[in-house]
């Protein structure tokens, strides 16, 4: 194994949708604690101010108490909102595993509303042979589910 194989690679999750509402309305739902609680999760200690620390309480797993520690990184009203999203524990695999990630919301005006793009970045992918072997055992299940996923997507 060379150095490149030991260096963790990261991957992003991207969700990109158009909503028939103005950027200002969407911005409110992203940055107002009560509204966040109604679609995402209720934050504790949240203020849309750069540097602010806040938390989300989620389901515990193993040695992790389920707390997601966040810090506001960027506030550009009606355009861009980013915060750090950290949690999990080294001892967990899959759900509850160590997370050191960033959540970014990007808003842009389009003809019939607002495009909202979420980028949740910094997921570390297993890059070694053992992990790939483990993953390949899950393939069969994954492949069986594809038909359902494709149907559900459209």
């Amino acid at each position, binding site marked *: 194994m060379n150095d490149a194989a030991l260096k963790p690679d990261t*991957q*992003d*999750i*991207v*969700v*990109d*949708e158009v*909503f028939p*509402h*103005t950027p200002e*309305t*969407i911005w409110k*739902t992203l940055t107002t604690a009560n*509204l966040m609680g*109604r*679609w*995402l999760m209720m934050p504790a200690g949240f203020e849309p101010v750069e540097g602010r620390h806040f938390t989300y309480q989620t389901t515990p797993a193993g040695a992790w108490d389920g707390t997601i520690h966040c810090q506001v990184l960027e506030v550009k009203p009606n355009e861009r909102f980013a915060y750090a999203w950290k949690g999990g524990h080294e001892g967990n695999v*899959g*759900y509850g595993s160590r997370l050191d990630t960033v959540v970014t919301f990007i808003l842009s005006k389009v003809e019939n509303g607002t495009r*909202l793009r*979420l980028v*949740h970045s910094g*997921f570390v*992918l297993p890059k070694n042979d053992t992990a*790939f072997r483990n*993953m*390949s055992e*899950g*393939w*069969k299940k*994954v*492949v069986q*589910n*594809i*038909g359902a*996923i*494709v149907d559900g*997507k459209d």
Partner: protein
Amino acid sequence: MTEAAPINAVMRALADPTRRAVFERVVSSDEITVVELTRGSGVTQGAISQHLKALKQAGLVAERPEGRKVYYRAQPEGLEPLVDWMSHYGVFWRERFANLRTLLKEIDP
């Protein structure tokens, strides 16, 4: 790095039941040739080759020519966009976006 494109390619490649069956057979063997894949499949060798080509383009299989034969094997990396999509946070954010759509309808009808 994960845009819509790679996952679409993977989904398109695997949405076809025959192609998915070809992929499953490649996954379950270390390496396999077109001839072996054709045997007992009920599909022509030409059709199998086309399916392999599509799987290769989606990054799901790799080929290794040896003499007159070409051996195909599965590429675990090709499924990464899909595994990611189905992972906890992939599902999490899609569900949350659906919630957000409902909430927006309520507060801004």
